[in-house]
């Protein structure tokens, strides 16, 4: 019985591992490394890389700038409806990306909620780079906010009290105590959010379309090249795998993932230091 159970555990693990690793390995086995590098020089790839880098950088900067203070407030303040707010923040995590795309349309599209107001000031968002930025920010910000709240909650409240008795006002407490002590967790959340944003596909293709050089990001380019030039699609995919692996290894080396709520149970006791 014991041996049988041990065999069951080992087999399940082997099956899961094979299932997860095989497709990833297949990408590198299908195309020789030289061809991969060559395909990355293709004009479709280069355009998509530029669009991805540009839109992700702007979206990510905005998410960090707004998300960090917001996460601090949500972590430190106890107010009625806090649970509802936290749940609303997490809602985009469980939405299909296509729904996010439709939702953005409904809000910022011509016939959308803010369509008239945007039209009045001559701003049109759908199918522009601004639409890509909005889509990326929309899907990645819950990752950053969730991780950021967990990171700030893990800062020992006693240290914040100590800072206040030493004459530090709220802004100084944030800058000199909370922010540096939450930096590891914020870094992890930022990296995971960035990875999610770079990989954004569903919301972007609905809300921004797939115009080469304008709104076609790397994931959209994979989809576009899938019928036309499979090797280019493979090369871009390989690039994603390498960047993703480097990111994970870096985070693990710094031990930052332990701060990230995505890799921890939501209700686990928060770390005190």
């Amino acid at each position, binding site marked *: 019985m014991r041996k049988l159970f041990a065999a069951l555990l080992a087999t399940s693990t082997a099956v899961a591992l094979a299932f997860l690793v095989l497709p990833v390995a297949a990408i590198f086995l299908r195309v020789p490394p030289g061809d991969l590098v060559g395909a990355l020089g293709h004009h479709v790839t280069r355009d998509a890389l530029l669009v991805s880098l540009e839109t992700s950088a702007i979206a990510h900067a905005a998410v960090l700038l707004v998300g960090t203070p917001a996460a601090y407030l949500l972590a430190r303040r106890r107010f009625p409806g806090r649970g509802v707010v936290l749940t609303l923040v997490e809602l985009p995590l469980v939405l299909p990306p296509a729904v996010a795309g439709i939702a953005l349309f409904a809000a910022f599209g011509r016939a959308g909620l803010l369509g008239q107001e945007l039209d009045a000031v001559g701003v049109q968002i759908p199918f522009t780079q601004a639409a890509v930025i909005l889509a990326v920010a929309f899907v990645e910000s819950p990752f950053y906010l969730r991780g950021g709240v967990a990171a700030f909650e893990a800062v020992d409240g006693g240290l914040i*009290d*100590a800072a*206040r*008795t*030493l004459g*530090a006002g709220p802004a100084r407490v944030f800058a000199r*105590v909370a922010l540096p*002590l939450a930096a590891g967790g914020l870094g992890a959340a930022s990296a995971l959010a960035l990875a999610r944003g770079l990989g954004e596909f569903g919301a972007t293709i609905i809300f921004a379309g797939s115009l080469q050089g304008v709104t076609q990001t790397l994931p959209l380019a994979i989809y576009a090249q899938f019928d036309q030039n499979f090797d280019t699609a493979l090369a871009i995919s390989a690039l994603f795998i390498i960047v993703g692996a480097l990111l994970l290894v870096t985070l693990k080396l710094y031990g930052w993932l332990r701060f990230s709520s995505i890799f921890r149970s939501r209700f686990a006791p928060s770390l005190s230091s």
Partner: protein
Amino acid sequence: MASLQLDLSLPLRAFALELALEVGPETVALVGPSGAGKTSLLRTIAGLARPACGTVCCAGDVWFDSKRRIDRRPEQRSVGFVFQEYALFPHLSVEQNVTFGGGRADGLLRRLRIEQLAKAKPAELSGGERQRVALARALARDPKVLLLDEPMAALDPHTRGSVRAELHDLLRELALPTLLVTHDFEDAATLADRVGVLVGGRLRQIGSPADLLSSPVDPFVAEFAGANVLEGVAERGPAGLTRLRLDQGPEVYSADEARGAAVLVLYPWEVSLAFSAPDDSALNHLQGEIVSLVRVGNRVRVRLPFLTAEITAASAERLALRPGQRVVASFKATQARLLDR
């Protein structure tokens, strides 16, 4: 003259802490069991918690007044707070910790003999060193009041004695209104000019450590001061003495007056031990088997069924005391204080 004046009602889980107290340039220690609201009281003075009502004033400044709706924020009060686990900033060096609130570090670091640790991080320090950094940090802003929350609790028993002596000297030198809370009567008695005993949200007694030891007002205070507290019924005894029939059976004699339900208060160091009742002036002899022996520094605490005796380690060795041995505990009727129950 700098002084801290409190008149507070502070709601706690089971009861409210009601306290009126004035602390001059002296060290006042409040002792009490955990849950007595000691930490909450310090947090309230610092502005980290809010009382239900009352006033907190310091050197003429009003920090809190519920009637006048005054509630100054912690950063606007002048408090040096040494937290229980010291709450040093782990990402800052000793020097950066000390200068966090402004001011210069070098003088304080030298005074507390930690200048060689200026560049070290808190994680590299021993318990005693951490305590000194916490003190230096609390003092760096020249606070008007010093608050110490269980300053000895995070130290191992080995370093406790020497740290206590140093802290005592420093507090004496500073002559700041200092409020210290602890659950340890010995810490309170060695560090403070006055000791208050907090039980059930009330200040049962406040006075010099010697006063509390020699004339505790009730059994609670006596027990906190480390006394054996034995319950019994008192009646008139021979030769102007009081006879106390203990609930556990034996009878003892006291020079104090009491009738009816009473308690005997007896400090462990007033009890001597022998194998047979000695023929001396002591009137009280209680027999019992030794339950346990615990060495505390150069003394040994010997627990008997009714009471605890404290004798020197040298005596314990000479008598070769072991658990299970039958001994006689003796004490004088003049040492057997009686209090009403």
